[in-house]
């Protein structure tokens, strides 16, 4: 018998499980933590931040009680400073580079401090932005995720009018649909979006998908410039027998549904859950399944711990939550009964000379009521080619851009997960920011 059910945990426990995983620093804690920052010259943390936030600068301001100045210093480089403070893998970025790592392996809690400053600003000065005089220029942004909104915000600041076309009913992209609920609780993604949009000059049109409702060719003619921040719309399949069995889902869909459901007690989850993959999506799916009440959750990854794209901290987090991680095994066959998944047969792997996982022929089976696939998302190029098939250059399966995030088409820029590079919110924001600067130069040049 397969066992998938909702309401495995009492409401108070569910509420606790999906509340803030890392509560904010209180004002005194923040000052004490800020005092740990050495205010380095040529600070390594700044260099490690994809958006180049002046980290010692904003931390110093927390220490002096200048929280407004601190937050604005963050936001001038990264308008999503609030969500990045919560979701950035700081251990491999700023905090990993903190000089205190060399000294004592205990970095300044830069993410938590960034949250302190940005939370303060959102609570105390919800409309801090001032636009330059109107330029009369109009820019289309396709995709209302971090890349698109960051681009739109900067363009709006500079006096341009921006229309954002977003396929989904809500904007925010992965911040709204793709991040574990306990990382961005209390509707933070929408609150931050409202805060960012308070700058004015940005119109959002939801339910507008490229390739269905829009095409680049038309946008190019109707607007002075176009920014594409369309993310990765495809999900990689296992391409195995049994993949269509009930109970087998894409992890991203599971996460999105979880994010969009207010009452977590209504969400069905298996008693035994197997998650296939080694990235942060696998971690978020597995941990949230546990926190919904799944008894037995196992992540299976075809290579070792150090090859997982999920960071060490994320792996630790999953394990602390009672998720088991099994390495060096690849799914071979999905087992089912009466149209429903009952387990997964895995084949053990081992590294070949180049480090790739090679099947050994030896198998084992894990019982499962639910299987979540998290083996990667892929860029889908089709929408770019609607209405005449424009020749947009592609590189490594994604849109090719130069250092200024300019595509091969005139007036068309791109950034975020749909271009090559790290698939991080903070990198997407940087893309949007750089593209906005380049668009501005082009429009005003």
């Amino acid at each position, binding site marked *: 018998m397969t066992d998938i059910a909702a309401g495995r945990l009492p409401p108070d426990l569910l509420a606790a499980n999906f509340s803030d995983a890392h509560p904010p620093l209180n004002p*005194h804690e923040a*000052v*004490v933590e*800020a*005092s740990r920052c*050495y*205010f*380095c*010259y*040529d*600070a*390594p943390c700044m260099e490690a931040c994809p958006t180049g936030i002046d980290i010692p600068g904003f931390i110093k301001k927390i*220490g002096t009680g200048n929280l407004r100045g601190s937050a604005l210093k963050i936001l001038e480089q990264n308008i999503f400073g609030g969500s990045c403070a919560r979701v950035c893998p700081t251990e491999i970025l700023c905090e990993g580079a903190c*000089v*205190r790592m*060399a*000294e004592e392996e205990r970095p300044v809690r830069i993410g938590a401090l960034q949250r302190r400053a940005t939370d303060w600003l959102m609570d105390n000065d919800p409309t801090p932005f001032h636009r330059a005089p109107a330029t009369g220029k109009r820019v289309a942004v396709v995709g209302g995720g971090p890349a698109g909104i960051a681009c739109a915000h900067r363009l709006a600041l500079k006096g341009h009018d921006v229309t954002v076309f977003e396929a989904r009913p809500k904007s925010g992209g992965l911040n709204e649909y793709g991040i574990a609920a306990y990382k961005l609780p209390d509707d933070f993604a929408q609150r931050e979006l409202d805060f960012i949009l308070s700058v004015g000059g940005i119109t959002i049109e939801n339910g507008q998908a490229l390739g269905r409702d829009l095409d680049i060719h038309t946008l190019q003619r109707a607007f002075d410039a176009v920014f594409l921040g369309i993310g990765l719309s495809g999900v990689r399949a296992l391409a195995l027998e049994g993949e269509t069995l009930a109970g087998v889902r894409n992890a991203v869909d599971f996460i999105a549904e979880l994010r969009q459901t207010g009452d977590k007690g209504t969400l069905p989850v298996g008693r035994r859950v197997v998650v296939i993959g080694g990235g942060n999506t696998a971690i978020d799916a597995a941990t949230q399944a546990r926190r919904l009440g799944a008894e037995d959750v196992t992540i299976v990854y075809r290579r070792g711990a150090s090859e997982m794209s999920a960071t060490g901290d994320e792996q630790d987090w999953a394990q602390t939550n009672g998720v088991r991680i099994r390495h060096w095994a690849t799914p071979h066959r999905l087992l089912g009964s009466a149209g429903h998944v009952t387990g997964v047969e895995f084949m053990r792997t081992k590294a070949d000379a180049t480090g790739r996982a090679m099947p050994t022929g030896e198998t084992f089976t894990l019982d499962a009521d639910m299987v979540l696939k998290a083996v990667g998302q892929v860029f889908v190029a089709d929408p770019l080619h609607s209405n005449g098939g424009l020749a947009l250059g592609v590189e490594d399966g994604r849109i090719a851009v130069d250092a200024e995030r300019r595509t091969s088409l005139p007036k068309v820029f791109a950034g975020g997960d749909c271009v090559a590079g790290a698939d991080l919110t903070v990198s997407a924001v940087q893309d949007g920011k750089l593209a906005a600067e380049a668009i501005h130069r082009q429009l005003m040049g």
Partner: protein
Amino acid sequence: MADLRTNFAGIRSPNPFWLASAPPTDKEYNVVRAFEAGWGGVVWKTLGEDPPIVNVSSRYGAVGWGGQRIAGFNNIELITDRPLQVNLDEIRRVKRNWPDRAVVVSIMVPCTEDAWKKILPQVEDTGCDGIELNFGCPHGMSERNMGAAVGQVPEYVQMVAAWCKHYSKLPVIVKLTPNITDILKPARAALAGGADAVSLINTVMSITAVNLDLMAPEPTVDGQGSHGGYCGPAVKPIALRMVGDIARDPEMHNLPISGIGGVSTWRDAAEFIALGAGNVQVCTAAMHRGFRIVEDMIDGLSNWMDSKGYAAIADFQGRAVKNYVHWGDLNLNFKTIAQIDQDKCIKCGLCHIACEDTSHQSIAALRVDGKRRYEVIEEECVGCNLCAHVCPVENCITMVPQPATKPKLVWANHPNNPSYVPEAAE
């Protein structure tokens, strides 16, 4: 186990740690708790004439630093606000119950002979070990011509000290105010008046902060503030200097000094004693963390003395005095140069930016294979110590004395000194 017993101006105590005259020594209850914790002595909070003074509500201000509380502290409290007889009865009882501890009584009455003549026998009658004359309180009482108003006039210091020696057989300690240009003047006056010892420093006139919402100095009393007496770790350097000045003064040779000002640890105490103090008095550190701090003061001082081979306090008391010299006695041919331990360096760059912006441009910021590296440019280094002070890593930057290539040269003999006269060639 080192012998920590002291005999300060004839007053014996089991260790050199006394509580200074202040709120912690205002009542029998507090003092008994202090003795139970191990303090060697107390100076009872200053007694005055009846009727007692009245204190304000809201009395302390503090200066924090980077989230740390009470780097500096000030108060606008006055002397005891309890009737004289209540204090005298308690002092008598405490001394009787704790005969091995030092009980010194601080006194402040108006600057008339009759006032002192009246109170001194009453105090002596308690059986206390000595008296301390409060010539230092810089707020409130000084507006009534007492406290620092006396301490700032050497003639008054001498006069009152002489009255006390005349009307009392007890050892007389004169507590000095730092709110004066030359500490030697009141100290010499105390000695001339017959004082058996001096204690210093009393608190420094101060405003700890301005409350920017109330637009008033802190601590605020009903929207206004007064200057108060500053103390705590922040004043230790000021106190050390004044103690050192008196200790090295030939006229005051052997005058016992009770060191006060920011003493928070055994190390602070050792520094005061090395600079000539016979014991120390503590207040702010106890007010911050309670009387139990004395346990580590005793234990730490004892362990340090053992490690240095000092069997008794006298073995190191005043050892640093001979090395506390005037600037003109310093060797201008001495040279020290910064050295960075690259294995300890965490690449914060603080040494570079401090030297580059504010000193001698003698630390280079390099990138070697993309990695940060900070190197001393020895030809440019003047040996100022700034980099070693800003470096957050202990012993990463050390100042290395260079081998002497020339004999000692002091300013008096330096060719650049306009008053220097070269010796005539033979």
